[in-house]
């Protein structure tokens, strides 16, 4: 408030006051510094359309990108004790958490969501890098445990999408202990014979890379993302030499046998759907030679209803989606509605 706003009559106020202009219509690519228009960025899933650099994606955008029709249901995560050590550096950890919660509107650095991809049931645990660098403490560990449990319950594939600098040191040993805990969680998915895919995004380092992120059935990485155990600076200080070209990038990891494939963002969904289709629907229209053949028999999960056109996400599909498990458990899930389910709050996306 100043004298101007106080004394100008309402009618002429509109002339005096500045119109609100969004200041983020354009942004620079962090790699090639090319100018990018906000609508075009969105259309290209945050990939620079000049140089192909993959910028970070907000976690809810990421989930929309992955699931059929951009629809998913967020799984409510169990509460854990925050700040068990009453940690304080120059700032209290409790305050850092509060700030991050206010900034992101999330409880912690992980979201667990369930939905379908190519009509097949999928649970995704995605890290939110904007929440304290996606660092893994008890809450994140608990999120991975919950994601694995949900996947086993749903007979779904599990995708974990790390974007994390590593363990959250403000939780001390409690964060280190999340490494074996997260491995126990994904072991349960493997024991149930369900696919466990890790989608490595920028960055996947430290305690996160040295735990659940490196024991997937399939490792997919986004182009150019940083993956590694020790930080570059630490390595440089230890060996006192320059690091090789492209050190700790997705491509480097693939060349050294740690990653199955490096997939551009726009092909991720189609690639994942193809993999799940191959793993879940183990025989389709097989000519058995006796003239009868088999039709779309499946190994673990039976799809009902018409097969969705794969990778075409935008078509409005209304039919209810039923997943039938081998053990006879049925989970009926409306695909295109947003009714809250007793298990968790439903999030409308898109």
């Amino acid at each position, binding site marked *: 408030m100043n004298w101007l706003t106080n004394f100008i009559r309402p009618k002429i106020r509109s002339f005096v006051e500045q119109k609100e202009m969004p200041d983020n219509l354009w942004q620079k690519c962090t790699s090639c510094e090319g100018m990018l228009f906000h609508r075009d960025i969105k259309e290209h899933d945050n990939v620079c359309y000049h140089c192909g650099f993959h910028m970070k994606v907000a976690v809810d955008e990421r989930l929309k990108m992955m699931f059929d029709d951009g629809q998913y249901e967020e799984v409510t995560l169990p509460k854990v004790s925050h700040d068990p050590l009453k940690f304080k550096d*120059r700032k209290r950890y409790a305050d850092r958490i509060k700030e991050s919660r206010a900034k992101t509107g999330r409880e912690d650095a992980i979201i667990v969501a369930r939905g379908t991809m190519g009509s097949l049931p999928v649970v995704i645990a995605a890290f939110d890098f904007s929440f304290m660098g996606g660092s893994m403490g008890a809450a994140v560990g608990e999120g991975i445990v919950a994601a694995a449990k949900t996947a086993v319950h749903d007979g779904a594939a599990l995708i974990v999408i790390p974007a994390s600098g590593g363990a959250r040191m403000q939780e*001390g040993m409690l964060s280190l202990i999340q490494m074996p805990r997260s491995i126990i969680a994904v072991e349960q998915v493997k024991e149930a014979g369900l696919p466990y895919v890790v989608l490595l995004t920028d960055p996947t380092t430290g305690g996160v890379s040295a735990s659940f992120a490196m024991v997937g059935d399939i490792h997919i990485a986004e182009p150019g993302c940083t993956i590694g155990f020790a930080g570059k600076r*630490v390595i440089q200080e230890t060996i006192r030499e320059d690091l090789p070209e492209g050190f700790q990038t997705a491509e480097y990891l693939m060349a050294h046998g740690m990653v199955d494939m490096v997939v551009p963002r726009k092909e991720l969904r189609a690639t994942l759907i193809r993999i799940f289709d191959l793993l879940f629907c183990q025989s389709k229209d097989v000519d058995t030679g006796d003239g009868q053949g088999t039709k779309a028999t499946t190994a673990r999960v039976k799809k009902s209803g018409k097969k969705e056109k794969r990778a075409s996400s935008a078509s409005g599909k209304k039919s209810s989606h039923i997943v039938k498990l081998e053990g006879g458990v049925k989970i009926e899930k409306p695909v295109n509605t947003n009714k809250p389910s007793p298990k968790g709050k439903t999030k409308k996306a898109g």
Partner: protein
Amino acid sequence: MSKLEFEKPILELEAKIAELRNVSGEDKLNIAEEINRMQSKIERLLTQTYNKLTPQQKVLVARHQERPHFVDYMSGFIEDFTPLAGDRHFAEDNALLGGLGRFRGRSCVIMGHEKGNDTESRIKHNFGMARPEGYRKAQRLMHMAEKFNLPVITLIDTAGAYPGVGAEERGQAEAIARSMQVCLRIEVPIISVIIGEGGSGGAIAIGVADRVYMLENSIYSVISPEGCASILWRSASHADDAAAALKMTAQDLYQLKLIDGIIPEPLGGAHRAKDKTIENVAIQIEKALNDITPWDGKKLKQARHEKFLKMG
């Protein structure tokens, strides 16, 4: 750093005693009395100092070069120790040793980090910082233990996994992750003792066990206090603040229910009485093995999973 700053008065007294012992003949009786007096003063000082070590002082004790190391424990309580080398993929890693041996009558697989005790051996053992090959050898040995139904004992003493280009190239992260996975999968008992430094991923890689113990003056942490201080306080000089905040001492971690017990060290720390320390560790391991034996592999594994799931 074989001398600890806070032990200075004690070390001075010890030096004086040594000096007095060298004095020849005449006043022998008087000297003996003097030595006795000083000895009891040393004991008093040690009790005082060691009863209220700060976390950062504990870090220094845990890293003390004269603390018993893996090889000392092997000659101390393992009969017929038979080291086995190599990960069968790339190389042998001397930072993480392991093999077969007999512990108080039982055959077992035993492994641990070795830091070395002089310049030459420290370089040979890479200061106890293992590369992927070390963790892959650990996996191989654990699988072998399972095949022959032998218990596994791991002794942890490392500043962390080695940060180097080659280590990254050959999948340090994957090697550590798999090592934990194998710890969680094997259907034989696994007992871990942190005997000095438990440095982050490189330590927990062989520390996911049915029973985890720490020596009284050992530490176990997600990051070194110096590393934590340089990130959060922007200066490594705040290492003592970081050491306190991280709750990395055996006493803190026992209180947080992250370890199963604390093994006492003789007065003045493990570096003052190696044999007694080694004996104390052996007693605890034997107790734990007796407690677990006979085992049902499946139940044991299940209980191990539940134990870690309950933490945090």
